[in-house]
């Protein structure tokens, strides 16, 4: 006897279920299919190609009227079900009742709308159905659209509209796109590809309010005050299972409608499939598991034994030119190992995650040709021990080929600047090489590249090798560390010429072999980025050694030292009292006068740091940066104020210099001194910059040393005014910041580039001097501030996370 089967929702899950049913037992059921949308089943996931103009709606319809007629399905499209009466076993549609023997709820999900003020304005839509798609398709060149949400749906919407010439901005709250499917590296590449399509991507952007005009959306307002004008606003921030109907009918509902392994709800005659269900705590948002559910549901209806099992899922993005793949678990868990492969030339990134000799996760960008093979390995869980070394190269790997260390340089575009001093780009050099310049000397002679400061030598040599192949052998240059094949100088140059403004950009474009560097390269890269892009790059404390991260020197027993600044070595009774009080209050074991003309409080406990800083701040004392690769002290002597030999106000100049320079980050620490006369009581002749005052003005010396090496300063210039002495000092330090290798003190760097090269820029070329000073000031607009005051506000961070000794006592 035919049973009456009623299905609520003509979506992808129920569509597949009906197919299985009519195929296996055409006459078993008398089917009634309700759908809120005024149409039957179509392939919802293909709405994106429809939006992009690659397909038409007709092409994505899975079941048309003929098909329903042929299989005797009664269609009630455009008619939402408003209630289920389980006692009477009747479904109440908007236009009348239908009784059932078996009921299947397949209501899918509802797009989540962030409850922002203005979300009810006309022109604020989600991305779920054909109506939404058509609304977006009505946009064209000249229209502006903002998409909130940088996940799968939001990006497909953005790319589809961008393909129609719409000016699209994606606003995403997280630090990288598709963070649930991709790691940072792949997210970086995806962003780059989307930007190449003309889409603006705003990360870490928090939406605050939707602004309207005459009831229609006008702009999106962000937390930081930015207004993004738009004609349409698409919210694609997630979905919630559509459970209202089931809930009102009294079915067991958590986040979704509870179903067992047979897709049966808490009522034996009611089943549920699709995104509206919750199975063993899991929700669903991709079709692969829904198709499994559809099959199980059909089998259950037909009385066959069966069970739904959750499987590992994989994701792809349907945007042309954005080839990505992600599967399995690449985030949580212990005892796992990574294999990373990057090919900057092709914009390829692959990462495999291995645990117990099994592949458990994979993320790929740029080349996903082998993704199915990797996905198979994840699903089968077979041992990959035998092929571990070559696994990442995919199934076709035959042994032999290895990663090319030159690929980063080979990938550079022809116009990439290689030699900054002489403004020589890559193509000029490769043309010279092709024209017969076969070695470094010849390239230097014909193009001048690497003939000035010489720091781009490594890059020029690599170009020789890329162009000439085995005919040229690069003298072995020291890479920064095992994470990459490039020297410090090469990395610095490429960060500038390729405008790399984030750590992820450096890792990917320069072919890093590890996920996020190591303790050797990461602090260096962090410095290079902040020195070159002070406004765009945000300093990363987690890439700094403990001293700079904690703004205090760690000591052998794990306590810290606190050294407040004493400008030019000058202090007063209030400051001294504050220091004495702090020493008392925090039981500081040792108070010492340093070699840098100030007072050191040694042995302070880590958790007390924010509080001692706050106390010192109250007396006007700020961080002395005794821990930083940055400006340390400016030693001074008493000069004309008191000394009978003083020629200029050496104390005053020292204070001015310290006030201009403090807070700046430099490749290594920088120490200055100003002496009032050649007797040199401030020991200025062995400093990074040392100034000796004389009757006629100021002798500015640079590149001295008095640490592991001892070396006298070299004379940069003699200048008549204090102002010029300050200008030369600032310009010299900025040139050092822009060019030196991380952890080279100025004397080491000057030895490499030559004092003449420095003089040409700092002393002779007035335009360049002005540029250097302006660049320094720009950077200082961000860094000239007291880090102690900032950190004192976050005292929590300095405390332990929890005290389990208390728990244990209970």
């Amino acid at each position, binding site marked *: 006897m035919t049973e009456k089967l009623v299905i609520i929702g003509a979506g992808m899950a129920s569509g597949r279920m009906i197919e299985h049913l009519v195929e296996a037992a055409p006459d078993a059921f008398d089917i009634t299919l309700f759908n809120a949308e005024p149409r039957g089943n179509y392939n919802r996931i293909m709405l994106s190609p429809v939006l992009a103009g690659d397909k038409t709606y007709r092409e994505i319809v899975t079941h048309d009227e003929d098909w329903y007629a042929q299989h005797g399905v009664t269609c009630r499209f455009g008619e939402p079900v408003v209630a289920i009466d389980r006692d009477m076993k009747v479904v109440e549609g908007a236009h009348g009742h239908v009784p059932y023997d078996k009921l299947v709820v397949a209501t899918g999900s509802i797009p989540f709308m962030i409850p922002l003020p203005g979300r009810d304005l006309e022109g604020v839509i989600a991305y779920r159905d054909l109506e939404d798609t058509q609304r977006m398709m009505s946009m064209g060149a000249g229209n502006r659209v903002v998409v909130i949400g940088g996940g799968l749906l939001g990006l497909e919407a953005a790319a589809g509209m961008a393909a129609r010439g719409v000016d699209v901005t994606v606003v995403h709250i997280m630090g990288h796109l598709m963070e649930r499917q991709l*790691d*940072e590296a792949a997210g970086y590449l995806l962003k780059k590809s989307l930007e190449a399509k003309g889409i603006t991507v705003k990360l870490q952007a928090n939406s605050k309010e939707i602004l309207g005009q005459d009831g229609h959306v006008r702009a999106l307002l962000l937390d930081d005050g930015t207004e993004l004008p738009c004609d349409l606003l698409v919210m694609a921030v997630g979905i919630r299972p559509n459970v209202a109907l089931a809930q009102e009918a009294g079915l067991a509902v958590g986040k979704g409608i509870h179903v067992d392994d047979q897709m049966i709800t808490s009522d034996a005659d009611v089943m549920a499939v699709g995104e509206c269900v919750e199975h063993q705590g899991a929700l669903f948002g991709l079709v692969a598991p829904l198709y499994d559910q559809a099959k199980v549901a059909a089998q259950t209806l037909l009385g066959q034994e069966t069970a739904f099992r959750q499987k590992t899922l994989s994701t792809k993005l349907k945007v042309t030119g954005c080839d990505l793949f992600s599967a399995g678990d*690449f*985030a*949580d*868990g*212990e*005892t*796992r*190992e*990574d294999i990373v492969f990057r090919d900057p030339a092709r914009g390829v990134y692959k990462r495999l995650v291995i645990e117990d000799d099994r592949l458990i996760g994979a993320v790929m960008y740029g080349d996903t040709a082998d993704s199915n093979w990797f996905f198979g390995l994840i699903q089968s869980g077979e041992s990959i021990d035998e092929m571990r070394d070559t696994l990442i190269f995919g199934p076709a790997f035959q042994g032999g080929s290895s990663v090319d260390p030159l690929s980063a340089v080979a990938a550079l575009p022809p116009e990439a600047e290689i030699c900054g001093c002489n403004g020589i780009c890559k193509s000029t050099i490769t043309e010279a090489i092709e024209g017969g310049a076969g070695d470094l000397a010849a390239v230097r002679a014909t193009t001048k590249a690497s003939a000035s400061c010489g720091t781009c030598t490594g890059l020029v040599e690599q170009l020789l090798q890329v162009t000439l192949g085995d005919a040229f052998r690069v003298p072995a240059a020291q890479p920064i560390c095992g994470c990459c094949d490039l020297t410090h100088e090469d990395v610095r140059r490429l960060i500038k010429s390729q405008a790399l403004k984030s750590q992820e950009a450096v890792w990917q474009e320069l072919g890093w072999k*590890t*996920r*996020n*560097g*190591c*303790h050797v390269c*990461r*602090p260096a890269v962090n410095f290079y980025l902040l020195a070159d892009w002070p406004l765009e790059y945000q300093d990363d*404390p*987690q*890439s*700094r*050694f*403990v001293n700079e*991260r*904690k703004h205090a020197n*760690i000591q*052998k*027993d*794990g306590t810290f030292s606190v050294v407040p600044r004493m400008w030019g070595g000058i202090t007063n009774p209030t400051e001294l009292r504050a220091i004495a009080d702090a020493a008392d209050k925090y039981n500081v074991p040792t108070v010492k006068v340093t070699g840098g003309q100030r007072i050191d409080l040694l042995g302070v406990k880590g958790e007390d740091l924010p509080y001692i800083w706050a106390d010192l701040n109250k007396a006007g004392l700020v961080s002395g940066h005794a821990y930083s690769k940055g400006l340390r002290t400016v030693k001074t002597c008493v000069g004309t104020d008191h000394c009978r030999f003083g020629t200029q106000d050496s104390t005053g100049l020292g204070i001015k210099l310290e006030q201009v320079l403090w807070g700046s980050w430099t490749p290594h620490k920088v120490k200055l001194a100003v002496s009032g006369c050649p007797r040199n009581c401030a020991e200025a002749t062995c400093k990074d910059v040392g100034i000796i005052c004389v009757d006629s003005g100021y002798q500015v010396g640079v590149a001295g040393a008095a640490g592991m090496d001892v070396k006298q300063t070299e004379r940069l210039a003699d200048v008549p005014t204090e102002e010029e002495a300050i200008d030369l000092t600032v310009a010299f330090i900025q040139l050092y910041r822009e060019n030196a290798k991380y952890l080279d003190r100025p004397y080491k760097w000057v030895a490499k580039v030559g004092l003449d090269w420095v003089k040409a820029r700092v002393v002779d070329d007035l335009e360049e001097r002005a540029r250097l000073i302006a660049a320094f000031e720009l950077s200082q607009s961000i860094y000239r501030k007291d880090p102690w005051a900032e950190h004192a506000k976050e005292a929590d*961070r300095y405390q*332990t*996370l*929890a*005290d*389990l*000794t208390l*728990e*244990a006592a209970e």
Partner: protein
Amino acid sequence: MSWIDLGPVTDIPVRGARTLKTALGCVAVFRTAEDEVFALTDRCPHKGGPLSEGIVHGQSVTCPLHNWVFDLNTGVAKGEDATVETFAVRVEAGRVLIDASRLAGRSAA
């Protein structure tokens, strides 16, 4: 196992660590760039450096005092014949959970 909730994972800086006081000394809880968490004794076997203050890279941490590098999974120091103890921790629904029975178990031993 007895899991204790240490609070939201966001309380630990990404590529950083926070410490726990236990009856048996400090334990460092690390969070990597990929939001994995690990827990190790916060004391370097070399000269007692606080590992929680080290630079976290990949699934390793470098001791802040003399740069020994430890695998966060196993506690083994790279190239050294030394290991620090590790403890079971996991993230569930954004919260960090640590297995306290082991911490207690160690005290009994």
